[in-house]
């Protein structure tokens, strides 16, 4: 029994390492990017209505944020004092992302912050049970991701009802808007050529459009089922990734705050690559496990 438990723990450890390294690196990259934007928080929202976020993202506050976030990232990578480290990362994440929202750029990056709170819950609740902890810090992260998709599906039902997919013909207006956004950013006129090609394709392919929209609504509404089983979550993640690729192709929109944590948490591509490589070489995935026991 202990042998099986140990193998499971080693497997979960490896999965956790490949989840947390890309996640924290990406989070830190976005965090630094927002801090470099010199935002002045002119339209305070959320926590920035209570705390003066402008003071925290410039001058001495900015220095503190960079030092604190760097330290917390190192502690996170070392699995050090994780109850507090994850809470600290959550707090910094809320302050900085809310500062961005409060500068008029509502990116809805809540998933990035909430993942750390979910992981913190795992450490606070299951800290005394090693196997439970190692399982739950991954499973709670999956929940933090899929709940966003579920709510997005619910919003569509609440705002448009079941007719959302069939109302989709006017998505062409959103497609145009999106491609014009890119054009006005870079003045690359190929964006406009592509925009009108896609608008024409969508106008001529209404049935395909309804099927695609109905498919993505179904995926979103049933996203919580991915929290039941980790292997199933991986397949669900691949389906969601295909949906994001479709949105990117047709609408020129990459919802980074959704797609990136989803890929790291649900698909965990680096872990998957190592796992498949081991399988290819017909090596047991965790050979050291049995030796060390």
């Amino acid at each position, binding site marked *: 029994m202990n042998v099986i438990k140990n193998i499971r723990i080693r497997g979960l450890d490896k999965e956790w390492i490949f989840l947390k390294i890309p996640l924290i690196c990406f989070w830190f990259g976005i965090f630094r990017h927002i801090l470099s934007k010199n935002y002045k928080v002119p339209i305070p929202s959320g926590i920035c209505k209570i705390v003066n976020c402008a003071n925290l993202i410039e001058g001495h506050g900015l220095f503190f944020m960079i030092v604190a976030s760097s330290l917390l990232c190192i502690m996170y990578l070392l699995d050090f004092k994780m109850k507090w480290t994850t809470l600290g990362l959550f707090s910094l994440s809320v302050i900085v992302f809310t500062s961005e929202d409060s500068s*008029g750029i509502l990116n*809805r990056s809540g998933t990035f912050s909430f993942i750390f709170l979910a992981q913190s819950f795992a450490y606070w609740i299951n800290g005394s049970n090693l196997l439970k902890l190692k399982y739950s810090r991954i*499973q709670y992260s999956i929940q933090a991701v899929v*709940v966003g998709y579920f*709510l997005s599906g619910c919003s569509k039902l609440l705002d*448009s009802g079941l007719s959302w997919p069939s109302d989709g013909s006017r*998505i062409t207006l959103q497609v145009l808007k999106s491609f014009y956004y890119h054009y006005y950013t870079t003045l690359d006129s190929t964006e406009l050529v592509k925009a009108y090609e896609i608008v024409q394709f969508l106008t001529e392919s209404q049935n395909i459009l309804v099927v695609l929209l109905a498919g993505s609504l179904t995926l979103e509404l049933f996203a919580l089922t991915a929290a039941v089983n980790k292997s199933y979550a991986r397949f669900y993640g691949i389906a969601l990734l295909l949906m994001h690729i479709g949105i990117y192709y047709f609408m020129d929109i990459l919802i980074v705050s959704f797609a990136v944590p989803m890929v790291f948490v649900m698909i965990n591509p680096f872990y998957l690559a190592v796992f498949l490589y081991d399988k290819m070489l017909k090596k047991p995935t965790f050979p050291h496990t049995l030796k060390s026991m």
Partner: protein
Amino acid sequence: MGNRYKKFLEWGISTFGVALLYIIGVLLFNETHPFSRFPMYSNFPNWSYSFYLTDEANEIIPFSSLETTGSSVGHLYGSVSDELNIPYGSFRESEEELQQIGDRMMFVLLESNELKYKYINLYRKGFYYQNDSIHDLTVLMTSYERH
């Protein structure tokens, strides 16, 4: 029976508890980071807006030169309209309201970016369907001159 029910409840809490907490957070705090019901593209209205800047020769200034993006400026329009309590969409905004929103947008944009241009116009280009074909309507929101 009681034991089975308790086990099922425990399974439910550990499998969906975190997600449930987030949903409760959304109900309590609405669109407040980190909570959101992610309403992006939850409906497809008969309008969409994009925005652009021009210089004194009416040449388009790429947003990249202001270290921002068209998408961010699009978000800014919604945030500023909400801040000023001006309902927006469907081309319902009056000229005065557009000027008010535009002035505030320019203030926010220039607050965090150094202005390299002496004169800037902010335009809104909107798209809508009429008789099954797409039309567009461009309006000047505001002009800004550096003194």
